C-alpha cells in the first residue's frame, strides 16, 4: 500500500501550476463600464441609495433596513469554514451595468456577447433554451422569453423587474421561506439584494425545456447579492438551471445569494446550479424550498470553485407526501474549502427525502459535507436516506462529514451512509493496463464517481463538467 501514491507525489510538484492557465481557459475580465455603483462599505445611506435607484416601494426599503439591522447584530458564524477574513468595508454593494434591461439579443452590448461566447454558449443554443437570463455584474443585462412561455403565463424576469410588475406576489412570498433573520448572510442579502431571477409557473403548466440563467461576477471587490424567488403553482413542473464561471481576481469577492422556492401541492421543481467561481470568492448562499402536499423539490448542486463555499440547500416538507431531494457535487482544489450539504426538515406525515453527496478534494483542498435530517413529531411514517461519498486525491487534502439526524417521531425510517476513500490502486492499474495514461485513468475514475449526479444535468452542463474534471486531472498529474 505504502508504495502507492506515485500520482500523489506528482500532484504535489504541480500544485503551483494548477490554476495558472485558469484565466485563459475560463477567465475573462472585460473592461468595467458600469453606469452606477455605490461606494465601498455599507451603511443605511447606501441601502437607501440602492432602493431609490431602483424606485422600489416603501415596504421594500423598510424590509432592507430591518434586514441591515439584523445583519449588524448577528455575529460572524464561527462553525464551519473560516469567514473571519471577509472585510465588509471593502465591498461594493451595488453596481448597475447598463441603463436599462435589453429584451432582444441584438441590443445586448458587444462585450457581454463576447463574454457569453467565451462561456461557450453558442448562438444556436438559444434555440434550445426556454429563455436566457444572464446577469452581468449586479443586474440582469439581457433577457429573452420564448413566446410560448409567455402564452402559458409563465413569468421569467429579473427580480427587480418582477417587483415592479407583480408587487402583490412579492408581498405574499418574498422573504417568507427565508426570513432575513435566518442567518447573517441571508440578512445581508435581504438588505442589499439586486438582480436574480423571478420565476412563476401557473397551475398545471409543465415547462419542458430548462429555464436557464448565467450569473457572473465581473468587478473586483464587488459583492454579488442576487435574489431569486420561484413560485411553482399546483401541479406545475419546471427545471431552472443556473451556471457560474468567474474571472480570476486577486482580491476577495463575496457572493451571498438567497434563493426561495415555493412548491405548491402536486408541483415538481428542479433547481440546478453549477458553480465555478474563481478561488478568491466567498460563496455563501441560502437556498430553501417550501414543499406542500405531494410536491417534489429537487436541488442539484455542483460546487467547483470559490475560496470558501457554504451552502446547504434545504427542503421544508410541510405537506403530506412531500418529497425533497438534494444531489450535490463538490470539488475542492488548492486553497478551497467546500462546506456544502443539505437540510431536510420533515414536518408532515409520509414525507420522504434523499440526499446524495459526492465530493473530491485535491491539491490541499478541503471538502466538508454538513447535513441535517430533522423529523418533527408530526411527521409520521417519514423516510430519509443520505449517502455521502468523498474522494481524497492526495496527502495534502482533507474531507469531513458532519451529518446531524434529529428524529422526534418513532415511526421514522432514517438511513445515513458515508465513505471516504482514495482512488483504488487496482482500478488505476487496470485502466492503465488498457493503455490509458495516469491522468486519463484518474479523470475517468473521477468522472465515474460523480456520474450518478452528472447524468441528471442538462447535456451541455455535463459535458462542461467532465471537461473541467479532465483539465484538473491533466494539471495535476500530466
Amino acid at each position, binding site marked *: 500500500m505504502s508504495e502507492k501514491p506515485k500520482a500523489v507525489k506528482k500532484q504535489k510538484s504541480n500544485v503551483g501550476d494548477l490554476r495558472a492557465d485558469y484565466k485563459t481557459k475560463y477567465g475573462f475580465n472585460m473592461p468595467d463600464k458600469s453606469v452606477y455603483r455605490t461606494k465601498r462599505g455599507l451603511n443605511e445611506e447606501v441601502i437607501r441609495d440602492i432602493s431609490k435607484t431602483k424606485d422600489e416601494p416603501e415596504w421594500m426599503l423598510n424590509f432592507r433596513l430591518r434586514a441591515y439591522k439584523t445583519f449588524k447584530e448577528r455575529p460572524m458564524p464561527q462553525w464551519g469554514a473560516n469567514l473571519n477574513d471577509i472585510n465588509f468595508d471593502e465591498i461594493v454593494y451595488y453596481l448597475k451595468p447598463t441603463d436599462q434591461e435589453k429584451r432582444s439579443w441584438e441590443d445586448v452590448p458587444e462585450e457581454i456577447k463576447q463574454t457569453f461566447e467565451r462561456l461557450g454558449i453558442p448562438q444556436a443554443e438559444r434555440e434550445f433554451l426556454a429563455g436566457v437570463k444572464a446577469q452581468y455584474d449586479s443586474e440582469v443585462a439581457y433577457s429573452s422569453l420564448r413566446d410560448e412561455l409567455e402564452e402559458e403565463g409563465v413569468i421569467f424576469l429579473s427580480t427587480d423587474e418582477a417587483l415592479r410588475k407583480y408587487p402583490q406576489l412579492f408581498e405574499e412570498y418574498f422573504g417568507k421561506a427565508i426570513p432575513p433573520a435566518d442567518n447573517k448572510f441571508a440578512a445581508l442579502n435581504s438588505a442589499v439584494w439586486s438582480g436574480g431571477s423571478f420565476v412563476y409557473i401557473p397551475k398545471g403548466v409543465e415547462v419542458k425545456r430548462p429555464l436557464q440563467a448565467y450569473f457572473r461576477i465581473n468587478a473586483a471587490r464587488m459583492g454579488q447579492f442576487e435574489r431569486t424567488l420561484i413560485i411553482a403553482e399546483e401541479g406545475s413542473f419546471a427545471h431552472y438551471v443556473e451556471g457560474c464561471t468567474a474571472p480570476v481576481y486577486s482580491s476577495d469577492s463575496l457572493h451571498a445569494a438567497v434563493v426561495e422556492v415555493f412548491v405548491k401541492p402536486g408541483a415538481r421543481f428542479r433547481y440546478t446550479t453549477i458553480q465555478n467561481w474563481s478561488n478568491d470568492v466567498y460563496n455563501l448562499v441560502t437556498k430553501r424550498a417550501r414543499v406542500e402536499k405531494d410536491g417534489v423539490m429537487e436541488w442539484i448542486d455542483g460546487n467547483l470553485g470559490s475560496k470558501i463555499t457554504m451552502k446547504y440547500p434545504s427542503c421544508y416538507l410541510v405537506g403530506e407526501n412531500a418529497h425533497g431531494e438534494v444531489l450535490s457535487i463538490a470539488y475542492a482544489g488548492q486553497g478551497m474549502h467546500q462546506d456544502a450539504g443539505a437540510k431536510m426538515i420533515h414536518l408532515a406525515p409520509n414525507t420522504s427525502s434523499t440526499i446524495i453527496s459526492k465530493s473530491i478534494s485535491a491539491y490541499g483542498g478541503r471538502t466538508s459535507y454538513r447535513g441535517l435530517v430533522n423529523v418533527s413529531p408530526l411527521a409520521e411514517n417519514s423516510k430519509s436516506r443520505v449517502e455521502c461519498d468523498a474522494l481524497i486525491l492526495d496527502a495534502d487534502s482533507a474531507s469531513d462529514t458532519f451529518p446531524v439526524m434529529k428524529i422526534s417521531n418513532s415511526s421514522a425510517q432514517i438511513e445515513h451512509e458515508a465513505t*471516504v*476513500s482514495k482512488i483504488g490502486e487496482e482500478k488505476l492499474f487496470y485502466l492503465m493496463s488498457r493503455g490509458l495514461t495516469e491522468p486519463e485513468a484518474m479523470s475517468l475514475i473521477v468522472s465515474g464517481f460523480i456520474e450518478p449526479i452528472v447524468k441528471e444535468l442538462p447535456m451541455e452542463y455535463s459535458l462542461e463538467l467532465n471537461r473541467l474534471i479532465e483539465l484538473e486531472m491533466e494539471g495535476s498529474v500530466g
Partner: protein
Amino acid sequence: MISKIVHPEENTKFQVTENTQFIALFNDYPDGKECKIELEFNTEGISAEIICLYRLPERKSLHLTTVAKHIVPHTSCNTVVRGVLESKTDSYYIGKILIKKQAQQTSSYLSDRVLVLGDGVKNNSEPILEIEADDVSASHGASTGRINPDEIYYLQSRGLNEKESSDLIVEGFFNKVLETIADPEVRELAANAVKS
C-alpha cells in the same frame, strides 16, 4: 484480541497499545449522564473495537460520544453501536472518526443502528468523519427505524405471536454483535445487559 469492559459513567480516554475490544454496557447507566469513550491510536499496527450496546428503558435518556482518533499510520478501528429504544426515550449519540495527517493506511469504520420499539422516541445521531490523510479507508453508517413489519409477519406465519416475533428480532439484532465479543465471560455479561 482482549475484551475489556468500559464503565461509561467515567469520562474515559484510552491510549490503545494492544489489540483491544472496548465494550460499553448501559444497563446500570445513570439516567441522562453524559459519557464519552475516546480511543487514541499512538502505536502503529494496532487495531481496536468500540462496542456499545444499550436497551434504553421507558423515559430514560442516553448521551453518548465515541471518538476514534488515529494519530500514527497503520491502525484500525471498528465502532459498533446497537441500541433499542423503548417508549419516551431520548438518545443522543455523537460518533467521531478522526484521522490525522500522519495517519496513513488507517481504516476506521462506524456503524450506529437503532431499533425503535416504543412511541414518543427522540433519537439524535451525529456520525462525524474528519479525514486529513488520503491513503485511508473510512466510513460510517447510521440508521434508525422500527422493526420491518414483513419480518414480524414472516415469523408470525411460522406460529410465533407478535411479541415473540419482535423479541426474536431484537435478540438477533444484538446477537450479531455479541458474537464478535472474544471473551466468553464478557459476552455473557453483555448479553444479559441487553435482555428485556
